């Protein structure tokens, strides 16, 4: 396979360095709006849909990167787009199930949902799985970044007569340091605004590259006719080859990946939490999936298609044997002029950095919310003032960001031996998402789903997944849809189907047998030696799980051990974990969203449709939680005292950066005026003399 080094000119490097300085200054500028941990992680729940949409573009396109889709575009053609065009199926579940729940329940992380919905032990396990997922994702991001920049770097550099080879890991470490800088000091607001800029730039850069490519080839007709017929199809062959087939990728991406991305990607969830309300979140999701993703699919894959067309007409310019992961850089270098190539490369690396920095920020949020705070609570640390606590958490969050960056670099080691980034990502998604995906999905949409079931999904499901990974020819083969097993990387994609089925199977089995578990535990509790029995079950369960985990004995013993885990774990959870279905599902499942809204507001929601009003503000002293409008403005908004209001700077292009949420106070008589306190003005970043727009939330 042909690989490259030293591509690019001095002009390209100058453009790249300037680009990165501008981006970092831009991020640092908005970083000054980070005042507390809420701003650091969630951007203060204030932004408009368009800002979040563009921010999601940079995150999404960065993760589904130029490198991996160009690689598949080069190897297989237009079907590289299929991963981008299969996310709509779960959107009803997301828009009307998960999104309102995460906003109205005021959870700050996915593990926190598991605690509220199930139990602290479910939260603990979810935290472990989610941290593994997030750190793995960061590792994939770093690996892609490394592979993107390596072709531009020389094979070695010399300092004081000593020659140092440039390695993939060396490049990744340098990138990790640069990435860590502004995320550590900027926070979510900086990330959102940096991503907004990068979202536009990378769409522009990708489309520009397509235009250059088509021009280079002599026009669209020539490009289209140069592509082999199979390369023009939008989907891969149903079940071949093993490294790129439709059915495997359907289960890995359209099912596990889509639910994983929409339901458990903390980075994306935090984007939606930064929206000013649920409806804005729905708009952001809809516009992103309907219109931006198809454009993004062209943006990220076209270098591969152009590369394929050039390789057909001029194999001496682009050899068919070019390393697929390097095709983007190779093609960009051929068709773009010096300086422009630097700009395209800067956009590519910046997009990847967007993904990575979002994930680092999100993982730090999980650390603070699901490790730091519970541990402090457990250790019963003495209470400190809110301001001091917030300052301390912000400091810890920044240290956590640095630690997560380092772990992300280490995670690269697990993925760097896959032939392409695409396969590494596919394998990763198929393996790590199913337990959490099943846990969240059934937790939201099935009221009967119990802590025993979710913990069994995490423990028993994982035991069966380990067996699948260890004996793919036995366990995964029945679900392979005719896909050939590659012994080096068996069933990279279709394993998602097996993993999802075993996790869902364990979950359903345990849920529908809840009554029996309660009966058995009731019997055990009534026995004199009940505690001894349950302790014995605990020891046996740990023992058999250990057999599966560390690969002791043969396949049959391990399979039997996994079954014992699935039988025993629900009994242990039923014994140890208190659970009240009514309390634990209140406002936390799709069928109790109206209750969630009521709890969110602290009273009955007011859904009467009103108008938005424009007002000037007067600073007054008084209750910090309310703002006061005139009677007439309240009437126009159909608002009553106690309803929730969102008020923002009227300049639409600010996207809600200068805004606050508050409660309507008792009205006054000064039409066109709103009375706010000095603190509210400071928090909303409002500027004297500027008009504000107010709207009732509920």
């Amino acid at each position, binding site marked *: 396979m042909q690989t490259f080094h030293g591509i690019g000119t001095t002009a390209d490097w100058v453009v790249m360095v300037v680009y990165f300085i501008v981006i970092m200054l831009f991020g640092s500028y908005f970083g000054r709006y980070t005042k507390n941990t809420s701003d650091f992680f969630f951007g203060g729940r204030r932004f408009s849909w368009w800002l979040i949409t563009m921010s999601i573009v940079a995150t999404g396109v960065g993760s589904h990167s130029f490198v991996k889709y160009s690689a598949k575009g080069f190897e297989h053609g237009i079907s590289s787009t299929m991963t981008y065009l*299969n996310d709509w199926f779960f959107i009803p579940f997301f828009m009307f199930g998960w999104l309102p729940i995460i906003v109205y329940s005021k959870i700050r992380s996915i593990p926190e949902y598991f605690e509220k919905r199930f139990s602290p032990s479910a939260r603990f396990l979810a935290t472990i799985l989610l941290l593994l997922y997030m750190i793995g994702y960061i590792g994939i991001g770093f690996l892609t970044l490394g592979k993107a920049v390596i072709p531009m770097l020389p094979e070695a550099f010399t300092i004081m007569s000593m020659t140092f080879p440039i390695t993939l890991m060396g490049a990744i470490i340098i990138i990790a340091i640069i990435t860590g800088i502004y995320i550590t000091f900027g926070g979510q607001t900086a990330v959102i605004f940096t991503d907004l800029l990068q979202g536009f730039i990378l769409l522009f850069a990708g489309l520009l590259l397509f235009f250059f490519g088509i021009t280079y080839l002599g026009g669209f007709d020539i490009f289209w006719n140069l592509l082999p017929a199979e390369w023009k199809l939008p989907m891969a062959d149903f079940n071949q080859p093993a490294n790129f087939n439709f059915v495997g990728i359907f289960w890995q991406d359209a099912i596990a990946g889509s639910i994983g991305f929409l339901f458990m990607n903390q980075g994306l969830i935090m984007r939606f939490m930064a929206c000013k309300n649920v409806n804005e979140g729905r708009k952001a999701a809809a516009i992103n999936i309907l219109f931006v993703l198809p454009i993004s699919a062209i943006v990220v894959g076209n270098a591969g298609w152009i590369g394929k067309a050039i390789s057909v007409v001029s194999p001496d310019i682009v050899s068919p044997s070019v390393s697929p992961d390097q095709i983007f850089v190779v093609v960009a270098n051929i068709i773009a002029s010096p300086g422009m190539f630097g700009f395209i490369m800067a956009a590519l690396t910046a997009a990847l950095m967007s993904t990575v920095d979002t994930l680092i920020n999100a993982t730090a949020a999980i650390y603070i919310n699901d490790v730091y705070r519970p541990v402090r609570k457990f250790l019963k640390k003495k209470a400190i003032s809110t301001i001091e606590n917030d300052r301390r958490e912000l400091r810890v969050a920044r240290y956590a960001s640095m630690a997560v960056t380092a772990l992300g670099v280490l995670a690269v080691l697990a993925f760097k031996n896959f032939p392409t980034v695409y396969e590494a990502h596919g394998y990763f998604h198929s393996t790590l998402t199913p337990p959490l995906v099943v846990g969240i999905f059934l937790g939201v949409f099935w009221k009967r789903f119990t802590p025993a079931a979710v913990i069994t999904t995490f423990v028993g499901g994982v035991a069966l997944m380990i067996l699948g990974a260890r004996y793919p020819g036995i366990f995964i083969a029945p679900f392979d849809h005719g896909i050939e097993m590659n012994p080096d990387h068996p069933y990279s994609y279709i394993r998602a189907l097996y993993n999802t089925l075993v996790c869902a199977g364990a979950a359903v089995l345990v849920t529908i047998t809840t009554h029996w578990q309660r009966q058995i535990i009731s019997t055990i509790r009534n026995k004199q030696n009940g505690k001894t029995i349950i302790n014995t079950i605990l020891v046996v369960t740990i023992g058999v799980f250990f057999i599966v985990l560390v690969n002791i004995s043969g396949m049959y013993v391990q399979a039997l051990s996994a079954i014992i885990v699935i039988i025993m774990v629900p009994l242990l959870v039923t014994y140890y974990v208190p659970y009240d279905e009514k309390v634990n599902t209140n406002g936390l499942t799709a069928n109790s969203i109206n209750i969630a809204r009521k709890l969110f507001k602290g009273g009955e929601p007011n859904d009467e449709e009103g108008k938005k009003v424009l007002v000037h503000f007067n600073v007054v002293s008084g209750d910090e939680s309310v703002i006061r409008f005139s009677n007439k403005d309240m009437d126009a908004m159909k608002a009553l005292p106690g309803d929730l209001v969102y008020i923002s700077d009227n300049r639409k292009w600010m996207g809600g950066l200068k805004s606050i949420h508050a409660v309507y106070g008792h009205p006054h008589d000064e039409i066109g005026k709103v009375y706010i306190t000095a603190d509210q003005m400071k928090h909303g970043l409002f500027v004297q003399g500027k008009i504000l727009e107010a709207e009732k939330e509920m």
Partner: protein
Amino acid sequence: MNFSHTWLPFFYLYGLGGILFIAGIFITIKAGSFDLNRKDHKKWMWILLFGFVWYLMMHALMIWAALDIISVYTVPIVLLGMVVVFVVVTLMFRKTKRV
């Protein structure tokens, strides 16, 4: 080109995906979180159904173009037409809402 590369993935995607999509709408309506008595939710129903047809048409047109049944230029023209319909109907919903 054989069926397993052309239409089989399409039928699998929109068959199984369609079942999941309809199940999503049905479950959220049944749960009460998707309330078709609310005007804004009716608009969302239109957007959801449009989205499904939008993607289905996109893939079908791309397969026809790859098979040379239609010109590749027909794909963006039809899709742009769909966008126009989407925008007009969505704006009509907004107009209704104001009344």
